């Protein structure tokens, strides 16, 4: 278990290989982000019957690079109401986790260079899945602190929204991942991929019965603040969201992290539910095929993210919270229990399934009760008083008008 690179302790050669791995992944990620931004702009343009970037480089391929270079030359403003330390710290808290999450993604199989066997994966910690969840929690701090430290109202509101949204969907995401862990008995991403490599039928998406995948997908989209869950930067309400006050390269780093997270989340989905680098290989250059499969599968999800952005309008905040808390979390929990019960035996399975249906009915009833209670409360407190006052005004106006009519 674990990366064979570290089987014989850490020597100079091992250290060099580790550094090379990290630098290569870093560079590939940066280029991937560049291409991803270009692709998003191009595909969205195509879907909206526009041309999109086409000046910098062939087909506008260098547009993101040009934008990046431009941002280096832009004035970096620090609002005078900002908390200076935290304002400077926030981009690190967003960017570093974005790089780190990708380290646990298995990109390809094992290779052997100069008698040093190693996995094509930056790191394979035994608790990779927990590492993933922990880092996605840490990145909440980035957006939270960025908004809070700006000393301005739109970023503050944006960051409060962002953190509530991200922690809400993190719960659903964690439960969906737990289903995969239940199937594969391990927290190591490489072992998860290995457990899925027997055939397509062993892929997580089929083994866990599609539902955890769908939940994870929705939750990941919300976690990334991608449309239709991009309330964090709802322009009509919040200007630019938590990074409204950020300019120049600080803004660029937030943007970079956002796209990098998108790539990473697609890669994580491929790892957990679609067998990672699993796929038919050939004898010619055997180590290349897994990488190609991995990149291909990830690309599909990236394309779908762009497609969703072009197709779906933004949710309302209450719809977002209702979807996360009242639908996805109970569904994910119930599904996990059902999978677990069917693994024990069928009798338990159907019993737990029936129990979950009852629980769903109870939940539906409690949602209705909650809404009614809140309405009663609203009518007897502040909001209700305001509404009643408005009603009085309306009534008086009506009475006055009818009197006037009578006098005439």
């Amino acid at each position: 278990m674990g990366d064979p690179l570290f089987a014989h302790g850490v020597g100079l050669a091992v250290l060099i290989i580790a550094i090379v791995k990290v630098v290569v992944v870093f560079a590939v990620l940066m280029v991937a982000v560049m291409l991803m931004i270009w692709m998003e702009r191009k595909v969205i343009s195509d879907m909206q019957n526009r041309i999109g970037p086409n000046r910098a480089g062939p087909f506008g391929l260098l547009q993101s690079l040009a934008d990046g270079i431009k941002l280096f030359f832009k004035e970096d403003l620090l609002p005078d109401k900002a908390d200076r330390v935290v304002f400077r710290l926030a981009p690190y808290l967003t960017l570093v986790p974005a790089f780190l999450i990708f380290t646990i993604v298995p990109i390809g199989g094992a290779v052997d260079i100069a008698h040093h066997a190693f996995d094509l994966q930056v790191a394979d910690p035994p608790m990779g899945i927990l590492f993933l969840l922990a880092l996605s929690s840490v990145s909440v701090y980035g957006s939270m602190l960025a908004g809070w430290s700006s000393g301005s109202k739109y970023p503050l509101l944006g960051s409060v929204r962002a953190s509530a949204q991200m922690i809400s969907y993190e719960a659903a995401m964690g439960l969906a991942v737990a289903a995969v862990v239940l199937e594969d008995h391990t927290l190591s991403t490489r072992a998860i991929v290995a457990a899925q490599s027997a055939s397509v039928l062993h892929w997580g998406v089929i083994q866990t019965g599609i539902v955890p995948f769908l939940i994870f997908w929705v939750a990941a989209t919300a976690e990334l603040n991608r449309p239709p869950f991009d309330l964090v930067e709802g322009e009509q309400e919040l200007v630019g969201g938590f990074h409204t006050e950020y300019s120049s390269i600080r803004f660029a780093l937030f943007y970079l992290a956002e796209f990098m997270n998108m790539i990473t989340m697609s890669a994580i989905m491929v790892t957990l539910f679609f067998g990672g680098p699993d796929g038919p290989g050939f004898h010619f250059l055997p180590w290349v095929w897994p990488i190609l499969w991995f990149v291909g599968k990830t690309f599909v999800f990236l394309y779908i993210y762009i497609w969703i952005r072009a197709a779906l309008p933004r949710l309302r905040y209450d719809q977002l919270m209702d979807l996360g808390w009242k639908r996805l979390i109970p569904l994910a929990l119930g599904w996990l229990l059902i999978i677990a019960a069917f693994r024990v035996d069928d009798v338990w399975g159907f019993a737990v399934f029936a129990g979950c249906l009852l629980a769903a009915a109870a939940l539906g009833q409690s949602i209705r009760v909650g809404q009614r209670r809140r309405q009663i409360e609203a009518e007897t407190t502040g909001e209700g008083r305001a509404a009643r006052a408005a009603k009085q005004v309306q009534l008086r106006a009506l009475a006055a008008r009818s009197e006037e009519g009578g006098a005439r």
Partner: protein
Amino acid sequence: MGSLDSYLPIFLMIVLGIVFAALSFVASKLLAPYRPTAAKEAPYECGIVPTHEPTYRFPVRFYLVAMIFIIFDIEIIFLFPWAVVFGQLHTFGLVEILVFAAAVFVSFVYLISNGALDWGPMKRVQPIATDEVRTTSTTVRRVGPSSGEAA
């Protein structure tokens, strides 16, 4: 310390990420102009001069969400070790987790039935139905010297 060796690349990645961000800031400092003015450093307010301090107050519901999240996060953290060893636990593990899930679910239902997670706007007060016929003279308010009221 063999088990910690596999974290070495992660540590290297942390260093690389921090160095990258720091170098970007340094490059920006060297390349970008720096001519701050009061207007540039004022909080963004759509071009208006801000009249209020940012309030730092937001709806209490956000705090509620944070607290409820803690319950679920603890549950999830408990679920992971359970999921890893579930193959060896069988019926015992299932019963354990059912009891645990039931306890969490009951408190969840309690929260929801109290409206703790309702974000929707209040149901709007129904406008009073007027039995008057809606014509231009009742719906359009004329303003000006000829309308008979102070404009």
